[in-house]
């Protein structure tokens, strides 16, 4: 069963029926909000970019984004940039695969962000979500849907972090501003 997270909520990541998770996929999706007005049907393309920042004890060590699709250690892989966003089918627009068994020992948190490269704000985005899927069987483990958009250009979506011998996912859902993950660093740090 998938768990619908609310802001700030955390869940332990386990395989259904026990066992440790090995590979997960963070799927991020969004749709352009329909515009009001005469040509209301004309929706604009929105280029949102998903990034994952790997932290060791609150220090950024590596980042995976559209210009660096694989973390140097190979444990985190971005499946590629999507420039226009959701077809509205609720599928993932961008995915980031995390091989939990290969995450280097010093990396203790991976933060997922979405930012608007084209500068549009989240007012023009609807149905933005992130969901964590067990990549080995395609089962959704957790989903976090953002509340309505606002005058900001980025979202710090969620993080996956070590907890004991396993991993946890925490929904963050904080608004921020910036075009790329570098711009978001100050906004990420309080959530580590």
């Amino acid at each position: 069963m998938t768990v619908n997270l609310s802001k700030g909520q955390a869940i332990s990541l386990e395989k259904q029926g026990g066992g440790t998770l090995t590979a997960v996929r963070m799927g991020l999706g969004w749709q352009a909000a329909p515009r009001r007005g005469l040509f209301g049907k004309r929706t604009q393309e929105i280029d949102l970019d998903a990034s994952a920042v790997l932290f060791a004890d609150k220090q950024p060590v590596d980042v995976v984004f559209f210009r660096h699709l694989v973390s140097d250690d190979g444990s985190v892989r971005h499946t590629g940039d999507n420039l226009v966003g959701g077809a509205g089918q609720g599928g993932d627009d961008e995915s980031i695969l995390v091989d939990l068994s290969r995450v280097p020992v010093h990396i203790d948190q991976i933060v997922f962000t979405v930012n608007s490269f084209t500068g549009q704000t989240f007012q023009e985005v609807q149905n933005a979500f992130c969901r964590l899927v067990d990549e080995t069987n395609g089962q959704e483990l957790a989903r976090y849907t953002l509340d309505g958009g606002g005058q900001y250009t980025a979202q710090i979506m969620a993080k996956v972090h070590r907890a004991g011998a396993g991993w946890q996912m925490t929904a963050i859902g904080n608004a921020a501003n910036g075009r790329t993950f570098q711009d978001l660093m100050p906004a990420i740090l309080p959530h580590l």
Partner: protein
Amino acid sequence: MTAELVRGQNHPLPGTRLEIRVSAGTPVVAGATLGDEQGRVLGAERVAHPGSPTLPGLEVSRQAAADHRLAVDLEALGEGVHRVHVLLALPLGTAGPSRFAAVAAPFVAVTALDGTEIASFTLTGLDAESAVVALELYRRQGAWKIRAIGQGYAGGLADLLADQGLPEAGRLAATIQDAIALGASRSVAAPPPRTSDDARVRTPGPGAAVGPTPAGAEPPAAVPQQPVGDGGPINYAHPRRRTGTPPSPAPVAPPAAPGEPAPPVAGDAGGWSMDERLYNQVWGMFEDLARAVAAYRSAVDFADSRMEQELDRALSDPRGRMGSAGERAREEARVKREDLVGRAREALDRDLAQLTAESEVVEPALPPPYARWDNPVWHAYRVPMELPMALRIGDLTLPEQPELRIPMLVRLPLERGLWIDSGRGGSDEAAFMDPDRLKGLAVDTAVAVAARLLAVYPAHEFAVHVIDPAGSAAGRLAPLTRSGVLSAPPAAGAAGVSEVLARLTERVDLVQMAVRAGAGADALPPGMDTGEQLLIVNDFPHGFDDRALNQLRYLADEGPSVGVHLLMVADREDASEYGPVLQPLWRSLLRLTPVPDDHLADPWVGHAWTYEPPLAPPGSRVLEQVLGQVGEARATWPH
């Protein structure tokens, strides 16, 4: 609001920490100079460039790239700095354009740290220039401002730097171009794209992305360049697909025991033939080793820096400086480091064990083109009927596990020439070696590489020419000269050099003309052999006059696309009198060394890999035996 500047316009800067973004659409070099109140740059130490990328408050990229982000902290620049010039230059001697007229107008933007754009400037109207001052950041009454400049220099970086009052501008410009060339000549060609069905044990599933190509690296090597002129023949064959070989079923890994990784199997990668599968598997192992070691090194770096910080903290606490509390804190910091490094090593050892097991099944399964000389597969060697995808020209290792050797595979036909560096400046091991012994080993390496090329080409599709101006390598060249694989004895003396060069230059011209005419091989003179040609040059530049030098440079530039390749055995120092004229030549070649040397970078993480040349084991006759068969096939097979 972004201010869109025109040439000469200025704009105030709201803060002192900025980012300058450059997008040029083609790889360019970005640099910066720091000037005093008059705009003079006092010395080379005030120039940030790929060879020396960091100055206080400023950092540029080590490589030429289509996009740059320069971080600038104006407060950290130092008192004497009043002007910062941001400059762009085209890398010289590459296949890329040599004047800005040939590229899209570069675009530069200055942004604040939060990403908001402050000002931008499009450098339009450039023509024959190959270097340009894009922007100036300058102090005016205590505040910093920016000015759009766009001043280009047809004379390139040297003129640009000279114009800034820099002494020895020419030398610095050469250093910068050298640093870029080094970046290019030390990178192993980009890997084949990973296909989605290439399910390596560790790839977390379908849809695995293509690995990134570092900025400034070669274009992907997977696709050989087809010479296509106007109306020329277009090859519609899929470059990575072999004709005539139906896809044989991939070997199936036996099921894994619960909790264990699947046992490795040779050929366990995507591909249309065993040749291609093994090729992809080797590249997969190469990438996995690079990444496993990256994870380990990153963890160790982190553990070290954390321990440093904790030790500093323990030292700065006055209560803990003496006595047992301080000692305990220091001890704790060390234990924490050891614990993390230990766990990182454990993870690395797990990966290394798996890759070693894979290597142990893959190495014996390799066909001759991919196999080391000590592989028994060479005993059953037969002259092939078909060209393989690639050739092993050495081994690559990392210090974490020197026994784990990754075959260094290059695509065939060769896409760039090779340079065996016989100089002592290249590595520590070379520096302590007797120069004559090193030169001898360099010739041995060239012979070994040439022998491998001869062995994997069908009998009449590859010809080797040798230039040995002073005859100094005659003994070492014996495996080639005695086996009858050369079309003619090594050329000696100035006359010999010019004769061979003239013949190959003419050949390049003829093939280019034929390609341009769209006539293919039919337009070539009857009797001309249509195979690939390799020219081995020993003792360069001995025996070369200016004309010969120009012909050699012509071959280096134009040869690879029409199947004429260079294998230079040279010490760069010997040719230093020619100065920068030869830089494009060195740059166009892949540098190999006759002794193990860590100068090759992988395309994913950029580790320095130790290259080992493909020399036959001491006492082994395998090379002579293989060349003997090749020579025999040439003598007996009909043309």
